[in-house]
């Protein structure tokens, strides 16, 4: 337990400078963009004279120096104030809090599905390297790995929503349906089936490939030979010895991959019209809403840090070398 606490403290200590770099970086990037929120606002209302623009810029603090504004931004962040979204006329923090759960639901179910299916298939393939089953699974995973998520989403919605009409093609739930309780949950599940399925297929390919490669590494290790010499059944060797140890790199990869997964949600959410985090990012981009985009990028950085911290703890639980008392196999 104390070891876990120490791990958390060390992680947090290194995360703070990293987060600062992220903030400065995104700030610099967006500070030097041509056109700001006032420009976008004036365009949307059909133009305005320079005095109005100057007044607005002053009101939003857009006329101060870069450094002053960075300091302003940092100090308001410290108060958990993410600023005001010009496009939505609401606080950025509210928007993020509102949209984040939808994305977490989408990503969480897709990752869980992909992890379960991907590792299982990876174990089947890696149990007998170079066998016919292995070759088929590896080839399929290569093809799936090469498919762009947004294209797979479109193809799946052509098949299941347009041709077969089994599933809805857009939205998170039926609008104003008045459903409650389990009926509403079922409705949401139906709506999420296509986006979750699409994301899960793409991630599954990755887990499958890494699991298989990782198992191939473990097969060569001495303790596997020893387990064989002990006369353990193949099934027991595969599951208890090879697969368990091969799972560790997968946990590390899940952490490294979490940022990419969050990025991938932008396109999927835009295809299936899910009011989530990724779609919010796209809306922020099209409306030139700097505070909103900064808030989104920053929140996703924090999210990735948290996910990595949790995975570190999982790793510590899984790794037999870190917990000798747990080695029961």
């Amino acid at each position, binding site marked *: 337990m104390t070891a876990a606490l120490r791990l958390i403290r060390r992680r947090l200590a290194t995360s703070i400078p990293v987060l600062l770099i992220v903030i400065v970086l995104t700030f610099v*990037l967006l500070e030097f963009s041509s056109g700001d929120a006032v420009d976008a606002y004036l365009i949307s209302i059909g133009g305005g004279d320079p005095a109005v623009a100057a007044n607005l810029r002053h009101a939003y603090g857009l006329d101060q120096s870069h450094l002053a504004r960075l300091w302003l931004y940092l100090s308001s962040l410290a108060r958990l104030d993410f600023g005001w979204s010009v496009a939505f006329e609401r606080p950025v923090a509210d928007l993020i809090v509102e949209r984040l759960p939808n994305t977490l639901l989408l990503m969480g179910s897709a990752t869980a599905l992909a992890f379960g299916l991907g590792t299982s298939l990876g174990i089947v393939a890696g149990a007998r390297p170079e066998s016919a089953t292995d070759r088929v699974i590896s080839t399929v995973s290569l093809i799936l790995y090469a*498919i762009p998520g947004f294209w797979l989403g*479109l193809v799946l919605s052509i098949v299941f929503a347009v041709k077969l009409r089994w599933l809805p093609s857009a939205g998170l739930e039926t609008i104003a349906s008045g459903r409650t309780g389990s009926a509403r949950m079922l409705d949401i599940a139906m709506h999420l089936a296509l986006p979750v399925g699409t994301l899960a297929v793409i991630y599954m390919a990755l887990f499958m490939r890494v699991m298989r490669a990782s198992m191939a590494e473990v097969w060569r290790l001495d303790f596997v030979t020893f387990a064989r010499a002990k006369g353990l059944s193949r099934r027991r060797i595969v599951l208890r010895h090879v697969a368990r140890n091969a799972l560790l790199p997968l946990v590390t990869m899940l952490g490294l991959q979490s940022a*990419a997964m969050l990025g991938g949600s*932008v396109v999927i959410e835009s295809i299936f019209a899910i009011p989530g985090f990724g779609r919010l*990012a*796209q809306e922020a*981009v099209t409306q030139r809403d700097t505070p909103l985009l900064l808030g989104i990028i920053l929140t996703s950085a924090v999210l990735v*840090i948290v996910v990595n911290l949790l995975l570190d703890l999982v790793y510590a639980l899984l790794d037999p070398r870190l917990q000798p008392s747990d080695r029961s196999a």
Partner: protein
Amino acid sequence: MRPVRLIFGTTEGAIGAVLLSLLVLIALFAPVLSPGDPLDIAGPPLLHPFSMARLPLGTDSLGRDVLAGIIHGTRTSLTVGLAAAFAAIALGVCIGLAAGFSGGLVDEALMRVVDAFQILPGFLLALALVSVAGASLPVVVLAIALGAWAAPARLMRAQVLSIRERDYVAAARVTGMHPLEIAVKEILPNALPPVLTLAAVIVAAAILTESALSFLGLGDPNIVTWGTMIAEGRNVLRSAPFLSVLPGLALVVTVITVYLVGEGVTQALAEGKAGQVDRQGPTA
């Protein structure tokens, strides 16, 4: 050309190399294979594939030739993929070399920057950069490279750290070689090969990212890209699904090709190394 023979020696490498040469040829000779601007109107709109010999893959909702779009799109995809991967690896190698070679505070600071880029979702960063700097090909390449250089930098640093203490580096130091010369002449060439095996994965990811960006309407509007074609086909998905499906298939084939070549190179490198060890066997 031993490396080439080694790559062709593996099944994946051989298939990948043949397909890649084909794609490169299509990209190079796109103006010959399909003359004229692929964005020009070529026939009646929404012509289905195989219904007119002159336009074998049909036309989109504006009457533009789908086959011409796919041929010219090969150019965009390969150019962006290769350029972005080159930029990412070049940047990663420089930062990794600087971090690993200097050590101390410089190393610490550079690695925190690498951490920051690894934590940031690359696609969000690319979205932000393209929307800030405007959608043009160089910006797209830069945006993709910025999201991809962290992994090669990390690997490069690890390589440099392990090589830095070798005898031949110590020997170079003793002979009074300038540290910069040691870094470039002694360490760089020996640390590079493993980093280069990342190239295929980065090229493939770059091609996918470019297509996703242009799918969202953030690609260069004056250039045909498969992502844009898929996005435009989306509006008539019910009546003409082929408009989205065909460019998507082109994408999948291209990405698989890049992976196969990468697989071939990795295997060839592993075999090459094994061969070297065998040859050096008794002495090493």
